[in-house]
């Protein structure tokens, strides 16, 4: 029983990384209708920036994370404003292709700037350690990640349900032309949303730096998982992305424990099943 609970908690912390990545992806798709292939690369750049500010420059951890989010938010803004924006009137395929091009560029760019070898800074003192739980030791770091994930979930809910900006965004998402007619600066909303989504990706990447390596390609490894989660949850639904992350993270942890053979295919089987049986995702909009 203890084993099951412990493994589940570990899975929960894994789910939170995935949630941070999927949240940004979902927001961008829900509002702009763009599936941002380069999202994993933004995650990776976030990790690199956090490593630089925290591990190399020596800023406090929280400041490094904030700066990293700002930096990637800016990068996302550039990507949307000067590139993506010009393709909205075309077939979606071109938007996909463009973001794919960005993956190639960013992957090599980090290699050129930081070198190809992996980086890993020291873990912040206050996050080092473990709590006794279920007869074992549960790392403080994992608990921290769970906390951040929940905070982000609550924060996003509040942002989209309770603020003026959030309502504007939702209006734009569902009725683009009407929003335009009402005088809403639709291009501005799009840029803003893309920036917010990018910042969430950066947060995910930055949070992982002390316990995971920072290396070229770490984004590509996670983006496929993020895609499947967004699809499982329902493209464009934040609640769905959260639930999807929980499913993938927690079930994945249990799979490691009980069904090691299925890990790799498991994710895609679930995604395919959802797409075929309930294409709008698990959470109805």
């Amino acid at each position, binding site marked *: 029983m203890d084993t099951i609970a412990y493994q589940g908690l570990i899975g929960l912390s894994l789910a939170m990384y995935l949630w941070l990545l999927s949240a940004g992806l979902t927001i961008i798709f829900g509002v702009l209708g763009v599936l941002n292939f380069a999202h994993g690369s933004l995650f990776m750049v976030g990790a690199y920036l956090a490593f630089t500010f925290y591990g190399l420059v020596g800023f406090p951890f929280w400041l490094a994370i904030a700066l990293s989010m700002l930096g990637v938010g800016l990068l996302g803004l550039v990507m949307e404003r000067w590139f993506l924006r010009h393709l909205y009137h075309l*077939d979606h395929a071109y938007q996909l292709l463009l973001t794919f091009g*960005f993956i*190639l560029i960013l992957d090599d760019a980090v290699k050129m700037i930081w070198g190809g070898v992996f980086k890993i800074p020291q873990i912040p003192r206050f996050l080092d350690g473990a709590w006794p739980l279920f007869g074992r030791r549960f790392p403080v770091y994992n608990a921290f990640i769970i906390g951040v994930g929940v905070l982000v979930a609550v924060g996003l809910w509040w942002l989209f349900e309770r603020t003026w900006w959030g309502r504007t965004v939702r209006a734009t998402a569902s009725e683009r032309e009407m929003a335009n007619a009402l005088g809403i600066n639709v291009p501005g909303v799009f840029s803003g949303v893309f920036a917010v989504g990018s910042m969430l990706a950066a947060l995910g990447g930055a949070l992982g730096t002390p316990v995971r390596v920072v290396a070229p390609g770490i984004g590509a490894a996670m983006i496929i998982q993020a895609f499947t989660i967004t699809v499982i949850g329902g493209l464009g639904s934040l609640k769905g992305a959260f639930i999807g992350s929980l499913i993938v993270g927690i079930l994945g942890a249990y799979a490691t424990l009980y069904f090691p053979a299925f890990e790799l*295919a498991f994710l*895609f089987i679930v*995604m395919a099943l959802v*797409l075929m049986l309930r294409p709008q995702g698990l959470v109805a909009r």
Partner: protein
Amino acid sequence: MDSKGGEAANRRPWHALFGGLASPLGWALAALALLLAFLPFLAGRYPLYLAIQILILSVFSLGFNLLFGYTGLLSFGQAGFYAVGSYACAKILLATPSLLLGLLGGLVAAGTTAVVLGVLCIRHTRVYFSMLTLAFGMMIYSVAWKWRDVTGGDDGLVGIPRAPLEVPPLFSLSLASMERYYYVVLLCAGLAIWLMYRLVHSPLGLALQAIRDSETRAAFAGIPVARYRLIAFTIAGLYAGLAGALLPPLENTVTPPIAHWSHSAEPVLATLLGGINAFAGPVVGAFLLFMLKDIIVRYTEYWLIVLGVIVVVLVMGFRGGVVSILAEAVHRRARRDRRGEGETEGIRRSGNGLGE
């Protein structure tokens, strides 16, 4: 391509073939054919090896573009069918070394897989379709990686012979030399290209383009949309399978990465580079993509960023790819009287594009 272009294409096949290049084209094609026919005598073994790889990628991309450029479905899982063709051929060659059997087996396996998965995929379009194909492609990848007993797992299948081309009672031609195998691949690729050419200029080809342009209108005109999409999907799968089956005799090894989505991206990039709207786009693109990477890696390890920049530039400004750039240049020089420059504005969508 609107229907007027389609009719015109039937009357002047060269124009459709190269998006509007004039008749120096005939000479160009003849020169190319000659070059390809005599390549083993003109070039060393490595360029020959490259040529074989380019031909394989061409076949792969041609099938992909039938689905994308002509039918409007962007698949990110074609590598899955490529892998099925590859592994099937490899297993056959390891058991009975006969190239024809291997190729046939690869085709059948890939085609069957495509039909089965196609039934599941084509009910969706756009993003959902792309995601579903991505999922299935990666599932095939995990099977290849995990099923050690059959696929050899991450080690893959090794020691695959470059089996002879034989029809047992009649003849047996050894293909041990790279030169001979090159001619076999050239023949297969040539056949595949010719078949595809006939296909896209057939009523089926026109119907697919109609479906791409507007699903509702096509259905209204009596075209069985779902069935034709499935046919396109299957043909794309067959082409991927053929390309895959041509690989094992060349490399003597088959490993899981050929099923990975990053391999599925290759025909996408090749077609984008060459030109989505031109028949020869995928072939030209395959050549460019291969040569680009091959040359760049000799000088720097940072070839991804070069490729990425090219992709961004093409998507932003030259969506018709290299072929359309060339065609425009010839266009302007010949000062042809053409209505509109619509041909190069990417995949055409009528109405509000909500064909779902």
